[in-house]
C-alpha cells in the first residue's frame, strides 16, 4: 500500500487528484464489521474491568459489614489483636503499613528517580543505557517470595551489625531505639524499596524521555549547565510523570504481602524504631485468613476494606498532587 502511494506520487506528482488508480474507497463491509467488532470488544473489556472493580469493592464491603457493625471505629484505634478473646485492633498494622511504605518510598523514590535521570540524560551511551534499563526492569520480574528469602538470608545478616552499632551509639534517637533481631521494619522497608524501584524508575524514565528535545536544547541555548538543565528544566517538566511513578510505587508498597509477611516480624507494636518488628495490613490478612471463623472473616474483610481505602486515598492524593503540579507547570 505505502509502496504504491509512493510510486504513484513519484511517477505522477501533479496528477494525484486524477482518479485513475485511486486508493480511496469507502470502507468495505468487512472493514466495517472488524471495526464494529473491535469497538464492541473494547467496550466490553472496559465494562468487565469496571464491573470487576465494583464487584470486588461490593463483595469486600458487604462481607465487612458484620465486622464494622460489631467493632466499628474501635478496631481502627485498638492495638490488641487477640482472636481468643475476640478483640481486634488494627492500629499497629495500619501504622506498620504506612511507616514501611513511606520509608520504602523515600529510598526507592530517591534511587528510582536518580536512576531515571542517569539513564535518560546522556550520561551513558544509548546502548549501555538500554542494557541498564533492562536490568532494572528485570527486578520487577522477580517473585516476591524470592525477595523475601533474599531479605532473610542477605539483607538481615548484612545490616544487623550496622544496626547494632547504631543502637549502641545513637539509641537515644527513637528511630534506633531497639536492637534488630532479624525480622523488622527496616529490612522489610529496604526490600520493599527494591521491589518498587523498577516501577518508579521505568515510569520516571518514560516521563523524562517524553519531554520534547527542544525544551532541553532551549535550556542549553540559554546557557544552562548540564545539571541546571536536568534539575531546573527536565525534572520539573516531567514532574507529573515522576509523581505518577511515586504514587504507583507507593500503591504497590502498601499492598505487598508475601515478602513483608516474611520480613516484617508480624508483631503488633507501634514503635518509631526502625529495628523493631512490626506488622502490616496485608501480612495480617495473609496470616489470619487460613483459619478464620465467620466472625474473623468479617473483621478481616473490614481490615481489607481499610487497606483498600488507604490505597485509594493515596491514589487520589497522588492524582491531586499531579493536577496541582501540572497547573503549576502551565502557569
Amino acid at each position, binding site marked *: 500500500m505505502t509502496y504504491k502511494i509512493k510510486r504513484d506520487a513519484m511517477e505522477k506528482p501533479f496528477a494525484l487528484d486524477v482518479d485513475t488508480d485511486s486508493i480511496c474507497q469507502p470502507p468495505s463491509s468487512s472493514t466495517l464489521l472488524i471495526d464494529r467488532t473491535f469497538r464492541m470488544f473494547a467496550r466490553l473489556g472496559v465494562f468487565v474491568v469496571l464491573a470487576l472493580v465494583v464487584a470486588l469493592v461490593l463483595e469486600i464491603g458487604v462481607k465487612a459489614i458484620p465486622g464494622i457493625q460489631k467493632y466499628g471505629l474501635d478496631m481502627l484505634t485498638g*492495638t*490488641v489483636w*487477640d*482472636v*481468643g*478473646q475476640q*478483640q481486634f485492633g488494627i492500629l499497629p498494622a495500619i501504622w506498620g503499613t504506612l511507616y514501611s511504605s513511606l520509608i520504602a518510598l523515600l529510598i526507592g523514590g530517591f534511587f528510582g528517580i536518580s536512576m531515571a535521570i542517569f539513564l535518560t540524560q546522556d550520561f551513558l551511551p544509548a546502548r549501555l543505557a538500554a542494557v541498564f534499563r533492562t536490568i532494572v526492569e528485570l527486578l520487577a520480574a522477580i517473585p516476591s*517470595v524470592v525477595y*523475601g*528469602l533474599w531479605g*532473610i*538470608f542477605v539483607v*538481615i545478616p548484612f545490616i*544487623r551489625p550496622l544496626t547494632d552499632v547504631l543502637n549502641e551509639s545513637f539509641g537515644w534517637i527513637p528511630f534506633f531505639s*531497639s*536492637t*534488630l*533481631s*532479624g*525480622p523488622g521494619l527496616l529490612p522489610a522497608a529496604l526490600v520493599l524499596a527494591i521491589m518498587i524501584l523498577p516501577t518508579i524508575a521505568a515510569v520516571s524514565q518514560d516521563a523524562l524521555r517524553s519531554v520534547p528535545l527542544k525544551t532541553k536544547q532551549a535550556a542549553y541555548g540559554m546557557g544552562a549547565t548540564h545539571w541546571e538543565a536536568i534539575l531546573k528544566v527536565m525534572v520539573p517538566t516531567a514532574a507529573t510523570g515522576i509523581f505518577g511513578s511515586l504514587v504507583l510505587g507507593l500503591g504497590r508498597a502498601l499492598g505487598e504481602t*508475601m515478602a513483608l*509477611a*516474611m520480613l516484617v*516480624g*508480624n*508483631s*503488633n*507494636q507501634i514503635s518509631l524504631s526502625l529495628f523493631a*518488628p512490626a506488622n502490616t495490613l496485608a501480612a495480617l490478612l*495473609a*496470616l*489470619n*485468613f*487460613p*483459619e478464620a471463623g465467620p466472625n474473623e472473616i468479617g473483621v478481616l474483610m473490614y481490615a481489607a476494606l481499610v487497606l483498600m481505602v488507604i490505597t485509594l486515598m493515596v491514589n487520589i492524593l497522588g492524582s491531586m498532587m499531579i493536577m496541582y503540579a501540572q497547573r503549576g507547570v502551565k502557569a
Partner: protein
Amino acid sequence: MKVQIGVVGAILTLASLAALPVQAQSNTESLVLSGAGATFPAPLYKAWIAAYRKVEPGTIIKYAEVGSGEGVKRFLANTVDFGASDAAMTDAQIATAQHGAVMVPVTAGMVALAYNLPGLNGLLKLDRNTYAAILLGKITRWNDARIQATNPGLNLPDREILLAVRQDSSGTTFVLSNHLSTASPEWHDGPGTGKLVRWPRNAMFARGNEGVSSLVQRSVGSIGYVEYNFAKRLDLKVAHLENKEGSFVAPSERIGVATLAANIGRIPADMRAYIPDPVGADSYPLVSFTWLLLKEHYSDKIKGGALKRFITWSLQEGQNFSGELGYIRLPAEVAKRSNEALARVHTSP
C-alpha cells in the same frame, strides 16, 4: 543446610495459607485416608505414613499440618477422615461430632523453649518465675538481673527479648499456657489457658511449629516455644527449665520417658487429661500427649478398617520412631488404653 530447611518450611507454611481442607477421595485402585491437625506431632506422623507405605502399599494416607484448632474444626466439619490435636476435645465439641468422636493418644512430646543468642557461653537456665515473666513480657532484656540470677556465669547480652509465638490456634500453645496457668498465678489471672492466648507486644507471630522454630532461628535475641523435635531439627538451643521439684531440666528422650513414668498414675481413665505440672526430680515441666481424633462410626467399612490397622501399627511398631524424632514412646499402660479406645471405633456401614 539446616537454615534452609527451616526457612523453606516457613515459606511452605506461608504458601499453604490458602490451602483448602483436603477432601478424601477414594477410587478402586488405592485407598486414600486424609487427616489434618496438629503440627506438633507432624514429623512423626509423616515418618509413620512413609514407613506404613511398605506395610500396606495400597493405602495412601495424607496428613495436612494445619494446627490443632484447625484440625478439630475440620474433623467436626467432617472434611477429613481423622483429625489430630495436642489439646483434647471438650465435651461440648464431642457432642457436636456427627459420627461420634474417639480420642486416641498416639504419642507424647515436650514443648521446648528455644532461644537464639549467638555467642552465649553456656546453656540458659530459667526458673519458674523467670520464664513466666519473660512470656508475660515483664522481662524485656536478656541481661535482666532475674535471668542473670540463675545463670551466674553467662555473658547475657544487652538485647531486647522478642517472643516467637503461634499465630494459629495451637495445641502447643495450649500445653504451654496450661502449664503456666498452674505454675504462675500471674499468668493464670492474665492470659490464662487456651489454644489462643494474648501475648505481650514484643511477640512476633508465625504459623505452625515450623514457622515458630524458623522465626527463632533467624531472629537474634528471640525465644519461642516449639515441640522439642522442631528445635532439635534446626539445632536450636533450648532452655533448661525449673521443674516442680526445683531442678533444672532440658528436654531429651530420657527425660521425656522419665516424665511420663513418674506421672503415669495421674493420668485419668478417659485419657483426656494433661499433666500441667509433672512431679519427679527428672521430669520436664512441659509435656503433653497428642491425640488422633477418630469417628466412633465409619460408614465406609474399608476406609475405617484401613485407618484402624494404621493406628494399631502406629501404637506398636510406630513407637520405635519416637525417640529418634524427639517424641516420647507411649508407656505400655497408656498404649494399652489407646488400643482400648481404638476398639470403640466401629466400621459397619
